């Protein structure tokens, strides 16, 4: 059970241990060029409580991105169930999954995936437009919290890699998501920037009451989490080197 005030969300939150994410018998297969079918994700069970922060360690090609894309509703699974805030997204149509992703899920990509023609502020506000609606003050406060208040109108090409990552974090939290997914969020950063950015991401998730599911192969990242697991514990297919997505 989660009780929140609508605004300001940053300040007031009482959280219990109700699961925000539950996965059951999740399967995703890909057809290889030769015609063979490869199982990329085979996750019997996984859950994440509200505001919980979990890191998954996995090597490149172990299906981590596919796993996160399934949770985000970007990919449709071949079997199993994914429940986000008690809604089984595998039973939703594509449009409803898009809507859920826009409002309930924040996503920080390895390469940040900022929209190149848009300013930092527009990147955050566009996510709001697609989600719960624009809140200029909140957009600015998020960018301020990630230290980008003096770069609001800079385009990604005018920002350093670390700054881009911070904008991506702000964007992921723009719609007050209950779940934030992070795919190798520090993969393109140097050690110092990686530490700072990760702390920022974790702190913002915590203050916003969002659960965080992070995947990485970087042990320095994983060391910062109390709850860090091997991806292969969750994904049986990850033990196979052919599970590359």
């Amino acid at each position, binding site marked *: 059970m989660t009780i929140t005030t609508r605004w300001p969300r940053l300040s007031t939150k009482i959280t219990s241990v109700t699961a925000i994410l539950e996965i059951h018998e999740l399967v995703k297969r890909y057809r290889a060029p030769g015609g063979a079918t490869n199982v990329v994700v085979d996750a019997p069970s996984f859950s994440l409580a509200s505001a919980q922060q979990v890191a998954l360690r996995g090597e*490149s090609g172990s299906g981590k991105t596919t796993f996160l894309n399934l949770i985000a509703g970007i990919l449709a699974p071949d079997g199993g169930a994914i429940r986000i805030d008690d809604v089984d997204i595998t039973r939703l149509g594509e449009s409803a999954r898009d809507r859920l992703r826009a409002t309930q899920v924040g996503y920080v990509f390895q390469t940040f995936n900022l929209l190149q*023609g848009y300013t930092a502020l527009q990147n955050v506000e566009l996510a709001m437009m697609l989600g719960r609606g624009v809140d200029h003050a909140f957009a600015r406060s998020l960018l301020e919290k990630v230290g980008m208040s003096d770069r609001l109108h800079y385009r990604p090409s005018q920002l350093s890699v670390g700054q881009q990552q911070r904008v991506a974090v702000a*964007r992921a939290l723009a719609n007050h998501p209950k779940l934030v997914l992070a795919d190798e969020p520090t993969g393109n950063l140097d050690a110092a920037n990686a530490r700072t950015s990760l702390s920022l991401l974790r702190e913002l998730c915590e203050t916003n009451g969002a659960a965080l599911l992070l995947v990485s192969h970087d042990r320095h990242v994983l060391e910062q989490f109390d709850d860090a697991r091997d991806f292969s514990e969750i994904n049986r297919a990850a033990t196979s080197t052919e599970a590359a997505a």
Partner: protein
Amino acid sequence: MTSGDAHPSRLRAVALIVRRSLGRHAFASAVTILASAMASGLVMAVFAIQHQSEQAFTGGNVGFDAVLGARGSKLQLVLNCVFHLDESPGNIPWSVYARLKADPRVRLAIPYAVGDNYRGFRIVGTTPELFRDYRYSGDRELKFAGKGRPFEPTLREAVIGGFVAARTGLRYGDHFHPSHGISLDETDDDDDHDHHAHDEEYVVVGVLETTNTPIDRVVWIPIEGVFRMGGHVLRGDGDVYVARPGESIPDERKEISAMMLKFAAPTVGAELDNVINRNGKEMTLAWPIANVMLGLFEKFGWITRVLRLVAYLVVAVSACAILAAVYNTINERRREFAILRAIGARKSIVFSAIVAESATIAALGAMLGFVFYGVIVLVAASIIRSQTGVVIDAWSFHPALALTPPVMIALGALAGVVPAIKAYSTDVSANLNPHS
């Protein structure tokens, strides 16, 4: 708390995506907008000019009901005497003029005698009644600029139209020598040294205020002056007669090119048409003048249809240009679409954004099209005026002006459907590489 509900927010998202895309592809967008503008302007201009020309040439503001001239083409008579174009089909005896002038069924009869020009502008011999009794565009009378006045019928005096004054520089009190023939080349800078010039010298005693009718392009002199111009011969009674100085010309020797008629009643035209055209063999009555000109437009209606077809094709080409321009951006924007989808944009938003982008290009083109429309119409109006003296109302409303922009926008949106489908079907996961 958010500043608006989700639906307006999605519209804002579409607007932002369109704005950013147009900004990022500014050059290609500008060229496509320009092409759309030219297409839009052209199609509006074709419709408007065609309509305005037809109105101007058949609108009945010429001030006369009919033209009576030598046996021949009605159209040639109207072009020659109303629009001062083309050549005279021949002459008719003065006695015909005298008889109709005295006919109570005829309210106004004005004789015209043509055959000379000044620097390409036609010289027409007539009577001072033209300046006193003639009305154009309803009840507007001819007015003189400054201290101008009608010519004396027995003196070598001239009244010139406003356009003639503007183009030749002739002013009140200036002298000039008429040239022989109906030259239509106003760049023919004729003067005393020209071997076509008559010896007679005329003085300008009046410059008419601009009427925006073919009258503006005419040099008016007394009809007696045409009879007596050096080199002119008269065949009023069939024999050749050359006027001698100091000797009055017998009426039976005189002849005129045509006469302009205003009837006392609408039925008179039909009566004279029956007598002159159906039962006579020597003369032609061009009546009603508007119908004669309408016949010309109907005869050459295929030109209008071809022009419209060309305009439609240009519009189609501009729609294809929009399609090509937007389609070409889709491949490079696949990652952008994937990111948009990944942060929650529905497929319908991506689709709408591309269609809206195409429609926006067309809409901006349609808006800019009014500038091209204005330029085309002004140039066309200027050419028509300089060639015929007829002024078309460039700024009058035509339904094409209201219909073209929405049609252009609809076509633009339609052109966006193909690239929108391509964008719509972007594989999100595949375009969000790398995978780990």
